[in-house]
């Protein structure tokens, strides 16, 4: 059976807009023509090109290199090409790019195809403009030849080349019928790219391309994939990474009607069945009968005790730490300080809770020498490589269909692609296509979390009271070495997912030192929306507030003064203060603020809260947020992503908490892992400050603002400082007692 020849109906997916018509091929991108041919052969089997093709009917097909998890990159990246191409957006079809890193790799991730870090627009922006401009130039050159005029006499309107001297016009589709493609891409000078004032698409909102499919049930996620003869898989993983099953009621499981096979996996037990309900029934029976061995590091670990141990280490000046970030010389300057101030903050594990429980579909050939997989992944590269590694195959033998993602938030990009490998190994075991699905309980228990962390901060002031030195010693469970050992090595063993955001970037603090004390509890971890910023900005932005109080200065005023030399930062904070009417006191309510430079995006928020002292419940009444992400490619989507980030941040601030007992996750589902619902979300007011700076990210920048802003608001309202996130009711009640 040659699985590559099987035709699978893919009703509406990222592939739904693939066109097969022969069209004009622009083999003119950064890649060579060989790369283009490879890409084309991986496309629809027709002469598609690396980024753009134009069909005689005028259809313009543009490749989308990023995966779509709700952040909008599937629209905004092709739109950047379309802008410089001067394409009629109504004629644009968007197609997911095949897995070919040489052409489609993300420059922000060393050329891997990986959608994360809110960097898709940021990383691809310059290249995509260039590719669009090159394609336009090829059309112009061909039209000039046809008309017998100089190319300088030609202009474009959307999808039309115009020779205004003679009134002649050629549509892009017409040019596609006769165009010749140069061997070398035309040179495009930076200054010939469109000026922002001339943008027709960038900075103008368009309907996101896949949105109509998301209101009628036709959008396809990997969990929706159907194949003839497909079986259903479920997997019960060991509660602790590294453990394996010792025994279980195999005979009872096999006896369940519809169960095809029980598969012993290195990390757990899998079952393949004819129906999903048989697979889940078998999974339940395995769960109630299995005995795990005690291999693996995390057995015995208790997160409450572990966090106290982290805190003890954090305040120990002799703890073995490595420098993460240094500015000036804190070790020399802090001892000379006229006065110092110190504080501690704690942060719990948190879970992604993407709405689509993790799943994948795999079809491994009976011979075992090739595989086809369907997967909602943040990294096409990792999905292909993990599958190839699991099967001992060359990656060219793996065909990936990347579908829409029912949420990502960092969970769908681990190097080992745990949820995909379940499907691959189960399919291999039965030599049939298998859809492997995790239950919500699996998704929580097998979660890979925002790490546990303790933060010790110390500030030094000179005789005039000016903040001179800042030290942050962070003790946190390692993330990058577990989530992505490859990038950890490439980064020189820097745990950037844990540590980013731990400095005081943006503020005028001449001496800064951030140290990491490495901890490895054995608990599974991952980047989670906002990565290190969620814990680290809780620490630094709460600390900044405490410093302001210490100096007797309004916390907004204090920040604005320290941001005087960073105008964009100053502008967002000043704007949000105005939006919130910061100076106006509200009876029974408190205001708190926070500011972040998140990978060059400037973002600031003010929250308004009240507290029910009898329960300890914090209620949010309003959130104001100002964001400067440079050129806002899709302004309404910037607002939507910021609202989304705020809501995610509210959950992390107030309720979302994973605890570990004897190495295992204590929570199971949405009754004990509490995410924000409609009634928990206050009115949100988001303003985008449009600047002509190069675009930077928006997908998660506001998330880390909320925890410190709430802590600061609670202080303003009650005089009590909350130091342990999330601010669950019992903690708040205890703190206020």
């Amino acid at each position: 059976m040659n699985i590559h020849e099987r035709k699978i109906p893919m009703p509406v997916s990222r592939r739904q807009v693939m066109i097969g018509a022969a069209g004009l091929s622009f083999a003119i991108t950064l890649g060579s023509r060989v790369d283009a041919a490879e890409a084309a052969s991986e496309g629809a089997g027709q002469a598609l090109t690396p980024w753009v093709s134009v069909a005689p009917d005028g259809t313009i097909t543009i490749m989308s290199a990023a995966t779509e998890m709700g952040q909008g990159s599937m629209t905004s990246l092709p739109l950047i090409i379309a802008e410089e191409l001067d394409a009629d957006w109504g004629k644009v079809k968007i197609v997911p790019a095949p897995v070919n890193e040489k052409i489609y790799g993300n420059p922000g991730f060393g050329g891997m195809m990986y959608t994360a870090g809110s960097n898709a627009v940021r990383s691809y922006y310059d290249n995509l403009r260039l590719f669009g401009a090159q394609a336009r130039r090829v059309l112009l050159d061909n039209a000039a030849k046809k008309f017998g005029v100089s190319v300088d006499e030609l202009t474009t309107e959307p999808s039309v080349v115009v020779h205004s001297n003679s009134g002649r016009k050629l549509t892009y589709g017409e040019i596609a019928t006769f165009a010749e493609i140069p061997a070398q891409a035309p040179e495009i000078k930076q200054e010939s790219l469109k000026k922002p004032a001339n943008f027709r698409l960038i900075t103008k909102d368009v309907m996101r391309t896949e949105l109509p499919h998301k209101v009628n049930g036709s959008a396809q996620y990997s969990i929706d994939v159907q194949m003839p003869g497909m079986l259903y898989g479920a997997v019960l993983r060991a509660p602790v990474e590294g453990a394996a099953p010792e025994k279980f009621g195999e005979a009872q499981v096999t006896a369940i009607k519809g169960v095809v096979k029980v598969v012993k996996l290195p990390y757990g037990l899998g079952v393949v069945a004819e129906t999903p309900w048989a697979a889940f029934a078998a999974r339940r029976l395995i769960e109630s009968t299995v005995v795990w061995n005690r291999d693996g590091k995390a057995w015995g670990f208790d997160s409450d005790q572990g966090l106290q141990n982290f805190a003890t280490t954090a305040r120990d000046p002799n703890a073995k730490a490595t420098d993460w970030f240094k500015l000036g010389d804190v070790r020399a300057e802090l001892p000379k300080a006229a006065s110092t101030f110190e504080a501690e903050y704690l942060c719990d594990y948190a879970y992604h809770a993407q709405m689509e429980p993790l799943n994948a579909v795999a079809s491994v050939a009976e011979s075992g020498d090739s595989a086809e997989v369907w997967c909602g992944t943040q990294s096409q590269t990792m999905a292909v490589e993990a599958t190839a590694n699991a099967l001992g195959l060359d990656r060219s033998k793996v065909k990936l269909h990347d579908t829409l993602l029912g949420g990502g938030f960092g969970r769908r990009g681990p190097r080992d692609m745990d949820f995909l490998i379940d499907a691959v190994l189960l399919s291999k075991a039965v030599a049939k296509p298998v859809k492997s699905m995790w239950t919500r309980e699996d998704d929580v228990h097998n979660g890979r979390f925002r790490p546990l962390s303790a933060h010790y901060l110390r500030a030094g002031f000179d005789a005039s009271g000016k903040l001179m030195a800042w030290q942050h010693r962070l003790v946190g469970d390692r993330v990058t070495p577990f989530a992505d050992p490859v990038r950890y090595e490439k980064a020189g063993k820097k745990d950037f997912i844990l540590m980013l955001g731990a400095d005081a970037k943006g503020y005028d603090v001449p001496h800064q030192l951030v140290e990491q004390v490495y901890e490895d509890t054995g608990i599974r971890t991952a980047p989670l929306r906002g990565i290190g910023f969620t814990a680290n900005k809780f620490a630094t932005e709460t600390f900044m507030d405490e410093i302001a109080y210490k100096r007797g200065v309004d916390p907004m005023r204090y920040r604005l003064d320290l941001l005087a030399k960073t105008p964009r930062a100053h502008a967002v904070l000043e704007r949000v203060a105005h939006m919130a009417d910061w100076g106006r006191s509200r009876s029974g309510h408190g205001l708190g603020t926070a500011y972040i430079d998140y990978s060059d995006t400037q973002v600031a928020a003010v929250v308004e809260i009240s507290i029910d002292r009898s329960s300890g419940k914090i209620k949010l009444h309003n959130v104001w947020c100002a964001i400067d992400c440079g050129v806002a490619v899709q302004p309404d989507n910037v607002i939507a992503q910021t609202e989304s980030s705020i809501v995610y941040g509210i959950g992390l601030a107030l309720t979302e908490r994973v605890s570990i007992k004897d190495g295992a996750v204590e929570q199971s589902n949405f009754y004990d892992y509490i995410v924000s619902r409609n009634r928990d979300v206050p009115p949100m007011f988001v303003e985008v400050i449009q600047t002509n700076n190069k675009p930077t990210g928006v997908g998660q920048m506001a998330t880390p603002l909320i925890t410190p802003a709430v802590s600061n608001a609670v202080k303003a309202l009650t005089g009590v400082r909350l130091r342990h996130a999330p601010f669950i009711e019992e903690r708040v009640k205890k703190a206020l007692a």
Partner: protein
Amino acid sequence: MVTSFVVNGAPTSTDAPPDTPLLWVIREGLKLTGTKFGCGAGLCGACMVHIDGKRSFSCQTQVSEVAGKSVTTIEGLSPDSNHPVQRAWLAERVPQCGYCQSGQIMSAADLLNHNPKPSREQIIEHMSTNICRCGTYQRIVRAVERAAREA
């Protein structure tokens, strides 16, 4: 044992065991995959359908319970995706990842069926049954208000 019922106006039947969640019969038996699996516990609303015109968690409904009843899924809400709620959802650009939105839309349509002019508080309370992890809540409220206005 065969269970017979109506889905989106068409009679259908299944031989799934009577205690099988309706959700899995809809998704994997009938291949109507717009109805989503989110929690399996009636907590998130991704699986929301209408049973005899009232919203119900299909993950908490055993297939035997719908014998002789009429089930509407997102695919059957309107013939051409033109239900006022669907139109409002696009006008307000509600969906992000989109995974929960079938359930959100089915909940919203149920609200407006029974209460054509709900107050903002009623909308928020009704829609708090459904979780959206992308946090599109503010736009959901706006879209329900729009649908009520424009229906």
